[in-house]
């Protein structure tokens, strides 16, 4: 089989950084394979992806040794634009890649550069619009799209150019479970039916592990590759079914719910664990009959909700269901057009009664050190306080003296959470705190949120990540079209859903949410 992409003994250091980002990497990605880059946050995945079309080192500088060839061409001998017909790349922040304004023009941009004949171009744009279900958005300005829509447009724009190899960095981070499934199915179809090669980095292995046929495992710049099951076992992480398999000694470890069901056939786990007592205290926040929106569009319609001390409420629902708007209403920065919102007995004062960690963690970070960053929050509320306490609580005390810009996306997110939590507000809100977050960091985040709730505060978090919801929530509120359609304990709400059920529920039935629960029951 010919190789679409090949790394020969590649070592790369970013300028002014002593530790190599890639260290003696040897990888071959055969043509027509669906490959996954997997590893902890900051371990070099994004660097490898950017090296696939020569952006590393041509746009970054630094010292580069070894050879990368893509479709037989050396990436040092050709500038990235000369490789554009062979390889397309979608970075982590999809909005930042848009060059033109209209969705349709954006899709055609790559083809225009390649000089594709206009009739052919038109046909390909139409096909791509259909493939990613973008037809309703074709005439929209890309600046008005939601995060999930941007992500699909960025993928479509890369695909439309007709590359042989598609490289994607966390392509489903802002998509709801169904949207993610649709995008991955579309990629799978291109791989299977058209022989395209796909290489993607993803932390949410529950979404992708079943689709891929090659895994590249990262550990601090070093890389090994092989069959997904084997790689996932060696790097010690994986989707929940694989984690369970590793814990109770299934061999080979299952990667999909289907495999796990076969293996679990003989295990009878009934009855399911009784849900934890929710530990509710007094009401911290309440919204009563609120209607809120933008212009003539109502993002929330007649929502009633009470949030209590000690709760971790997870808001779920498809892209555009009104999750972010509800958070902004609770935070006191979006005034509802009807109804009332009360936090701690009054209209919420932003940053005092309610604090919110935004989707873009980088909007917060301005200090030279991580510690200074947290201290800035403390100083703002007139405290000298101990910044270290917050870093400790999130397990990032080791980063205290580092510059936030030098951290990986996942680490920066944890720093942002620390900054926001340091307000000590009784209501802590988080919007989609998952981009770049690897499983260990996610565990830290969950443990931290639990501690915050035990402290008598309330947490509300919006996410598409069902495994995070299953692990963290004491209560789940499902939104659709701006209205709550389900509200209850996670076992009931998630157990009842085809789209939002976590893997343990899919394998062992309603009530089973996390690997730890199941492993304990089996042991």
């Amino acid at each position: 089989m010919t190789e679409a992409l090949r790394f020969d003994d590649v070592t790369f250091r970013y300028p002014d950084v002593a530790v190599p980002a890639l260290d003696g990497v040897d990888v071959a990605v055969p043509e027509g394979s669906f490959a996954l880059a997997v590893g902890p946050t900051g371990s070099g995945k994004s660097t490898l992806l950017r090296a696939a079309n020569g952006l590393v080192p041509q746009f970054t500088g630094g010292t580069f040794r070894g050879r990368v060839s893509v479709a037989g061409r050396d990436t040092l001998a050709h500038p990235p634009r000369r490789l554009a017909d062979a390889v397309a790349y979608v970075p982590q922040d999809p909005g930042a890649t848009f060059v033109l304004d209209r969705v349709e023009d954006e899709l055609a941009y790559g083809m225009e550069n390649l000089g594709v004949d206009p009739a052919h171009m038109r046909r390909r744009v139409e096909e791509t619009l259909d493939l990613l279900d973008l037809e309703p958005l074709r005439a929209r300005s890309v600046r008005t799209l939601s995060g999930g829509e941007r992500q699909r447009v960025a993928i479509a724009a890369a695909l439309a150019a007709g590359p042989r190899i598609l490289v994607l960095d966390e392509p489903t981070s802002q998509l709801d479970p169904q949207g993610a499934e649709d995008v991955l199915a579309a990629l799978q179809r291109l791989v299977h039916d058209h022989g395209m090669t796909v290489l993607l980095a993803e932390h949410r292995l529950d979404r992708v592990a079943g689709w891929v046929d090659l895994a590249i495992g990262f550990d601090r710049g070093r890389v090994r590759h092989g069959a997904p099951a084997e790689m996932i076992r060696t790097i010690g992480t994986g989707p929940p079914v694989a984690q369970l398999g590793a814990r109770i000694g299934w061999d080979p470890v299952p990667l999909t719910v289907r495999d796990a069901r076969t293996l679990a056939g003989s295990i009878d786990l009934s009855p399911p664990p009784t849900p934890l007592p929710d530990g509710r205290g007094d009401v911290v926040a309440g919204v009563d009959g609120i209607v809120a929106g933008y212009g003539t569009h109502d993002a929330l319609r007649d929502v009633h909700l009470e949030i209590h001390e000690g709760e971790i409420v997870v808001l779920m629902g498809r892209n555009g269901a009104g999750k972010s708007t509800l958070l902004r209403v609770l935070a006191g920065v979006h005034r509802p057009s009807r109804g009332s919102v009360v936090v701690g007995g009054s209209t919420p004062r932003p940053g005092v009664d309610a604090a919110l960690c935004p989707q873009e963690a980088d909007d917060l970070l301005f200090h030279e050190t991580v510690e200074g960053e947290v201290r800035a929050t403390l100083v703002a509320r007139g405290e000298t306080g101990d910044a270290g306490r917050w870093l400790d609580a999130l397990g990032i005390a080791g980063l205290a003296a580092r510059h936030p810009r030098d951290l990986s996306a996942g680490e920066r997110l944890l720093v942002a959470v620390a900054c926001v939590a340091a307000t000590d507000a009784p209501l802590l809100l988080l919007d989609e705190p998952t981009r770049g977050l690897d499983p260990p960091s996610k565990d830290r985040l969950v443990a931290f949120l639990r501690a915050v709730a035990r402290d008598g505060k309330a947490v509300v978090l919006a996410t598409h990540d069902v495994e995070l919801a299953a692990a963290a929530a004491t209560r789940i509120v499902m939104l659709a079209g701006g209205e709550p359609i389900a509200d209850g304990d996670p076992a009931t709400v998630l157990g009842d859903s085809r789209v939002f059920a976590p893997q343990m529920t899919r394998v062992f039935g309603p009530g089973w949410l996390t690997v730890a629960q199941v492993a304990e029951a089996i042991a």
Partner: protein
Amino acid sequence: MRSPRIHPGAWIAWAACAGTVAFVTTDPVYLVLLWAVSWFVYANHRSEADTARSFRIFLIGAVVAVLLRTALVFFGTISLANTAFSFLEGLRLGTILVIFGTFNAVTDPFGLVRMAPRHFHEPALAAALALSIAPRTVESVGRVREAQRLRGLTVRGPRTLPALAVPVLERGMDEAHTLAESMDARGHGRGRRSRYRPQPWTVASTATVVAAAGAALVFASASSAGWAILHPQTAPPVWPEADPMLIAAIALLALPGLIGGRNP
């Protein structure tokens, strides 16, 4: 969505002609009419919500220009004649700004890039990207200010400025860098280009150009042949005249507001 019926090239002609008219006169009657015509055209062709905001910024800019230009009189001899003169000069400047605001709101700078001749593609794209920096920065400032407020940091005064400026600038730099990378990775500058769905030239486009050119010609001839007063006397100020021929010429500039129009 943006009106598809008037070609960006026709809008360039319209803006150039309207600008010429504003440039050759200081008669407040004509200038105020030009504000009205610009607003009329804008109201019938404006596209999305964000362009409404940028039109408002131009409008505010125009009013500020009028006030500042008038205020310049305080640096010299303050008299009714000087004030009137300064006011009319300011009004002319403001009119040109309003016309540009309308042009900006009814066309998409990236649409203009796409119709630029091949040799001008690169500078046109650079210009369009440069133009898009201002609205993006405004958006970014709003977002960062809100994010900081939600962690209890109110950005007010120079000591708290870094909390706003650093994330905005760093994001701006990052975005610029990612965009440059992305453009290169998507084949920008390979030298061979084709064009996707060029916008057709329509009858409405021709009518817009002809009407606008007519207006500009009438004013140009009045200016060079002197058959009407374009600069009313300010020492002492007199009630400005309004020539029906010139008013008719300005009405021609309103034509695109009547045709093409907003999509249903």
